[in-house]
């Protein structure tokens, strides 16, 4: 039974798309590299909810800009490609910003300027410059999507620990039992402040390096 179930999976594993996704998500996804790309997004990791909305916006913009740049790749003159790419990304970011304002107004207030700052996110431009400019649209879209999910995983990881340990909640609902607080447990206020994010990332990277070295 297991072999029958494994066979279609093995076929999937051989496709180019699968290989691209694995590469973007795991092999070429050290936390340090992803964080450099999304540095400014760290500001929205105090709560899981804002981090999730930010992740969706970021993934949408990365996938969309990779797709659009790849579709236009034969029409873009070499010399002005950077400015064309910035224009494509800026248009998508404006769209994302307006959509958030229309449908998720409260969250968009909390995200404030950080959605707009996706434009200066080095990795969105990096993906379209390094990958989308010389690959067909389907692959470029998947690459952008997988890279977006890659950053989102780091962002959500940081947000999970900051919200859980910093305010004892997940998605705004209290999860640390009242009995803990009565027994003397205290929320770690440092994690809610900015330094908490830096230290959290430092610890994540430490864990990652230690695990990879053991392998």
């Amino acid at each position, binding site marked *: 039974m297991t072999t029958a179930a494994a066979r279609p999976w093995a076929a999937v594993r051989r496709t180019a798309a699968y290989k691209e996704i694995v590469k973007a998500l795991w092999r070429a996804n050290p936390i*340090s590299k992803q*964080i*450099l790309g999304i*540095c*400014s*997004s*760290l*500001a929205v990791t105090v709560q899981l909810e804002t981090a999730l909305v930010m992740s969706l916006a970021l993934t949408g913009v990365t996938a969309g800009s990779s797709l659009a740049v790849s579709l236009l790749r034969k029409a873009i003159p070499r010399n002005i490609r950077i400015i064309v790419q*910035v*224009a494509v990304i*800026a*248009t998508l*970011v*404006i769209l994302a*910003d*307006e959509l958030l304002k229309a449908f998720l107004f409260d969250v968009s207030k909390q995200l*404030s*300027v950080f959605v*707009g*700052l996706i*434009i*200066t*996110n*080095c990795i969105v*431009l990096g993906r379209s410059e390094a990958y989308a400019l010389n690959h067909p649209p389907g692959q470029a879209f998947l690459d952008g999507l997988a890279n977006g999910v890659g950053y989102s995983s780091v962002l959500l990881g940081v947000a999970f620990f900051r919200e859980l340990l910093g305010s004892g909640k997940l998605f705004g609902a209290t999860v640390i039992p009242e009995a803990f607080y009565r027994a003397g447990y205290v929320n770690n206020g*440092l994690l809610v*402040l*900015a*330094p*908490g*994010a*830096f*230290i959290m*990332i*430092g*610890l994540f*990277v*430490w*864990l*990652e*390096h*230690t695990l990879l*070295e053991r392998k």
Partner: protein
Amino acid sequence: MENLIGLALNSVFVGNILLSYFLGMCSFLAVSRNLATAAGLGVAVVFVMALTTPVNWLIYHGLLAPGALAWAGLPGANLSFLKLIVFIAQIAAIVQAIEMVIDRYSPALYTALGVYLPLITVNCAILGASLFMVERNYSFAETLVYGTGSGVGWCLAIVAMAAIQKKLRYALVPRGLQGFGISMITTGLIAIGFMLFAGISL
């Protein structure tokens, strides 16, 4: 006046654009290995930020804000959704112009700052300062103070980081934490230090 001094202190220390809003991290981590280059980039950022933020204020309130086009007979026009793309284009243009002016009039300064100027266009702290200026409804005077203060704060942070990195070379750091990990934790500790200024109010 007191309000402006308070804003200046806040933008340099407690509300430091790098340490509490995470803006400009890419160049912060890439260039903080050497004290002299860090100081060079820091000064360039102060310069560009002090110039672009007020210019963006003029553009925003003269052309883009809701009702700003009343002088052209379009009192209902609201172009504020264009601010992202206009700001980034304006920053790129100003950086380019500064580069040419410095090259023409001060070759020594050009060789010192030249390589950093193109880097600055993609520094999210610059765009971030302009966007915060709109979001917080600063007046023109406040914008001037805020833009300069944020630049100075960024410069202080990168110089402090470069000095610490120099000492860190002689420290025994656990293997998995070397490099990026310890830089992040050090940044966190600098951020705690800057936060201590929160008690000061004018």
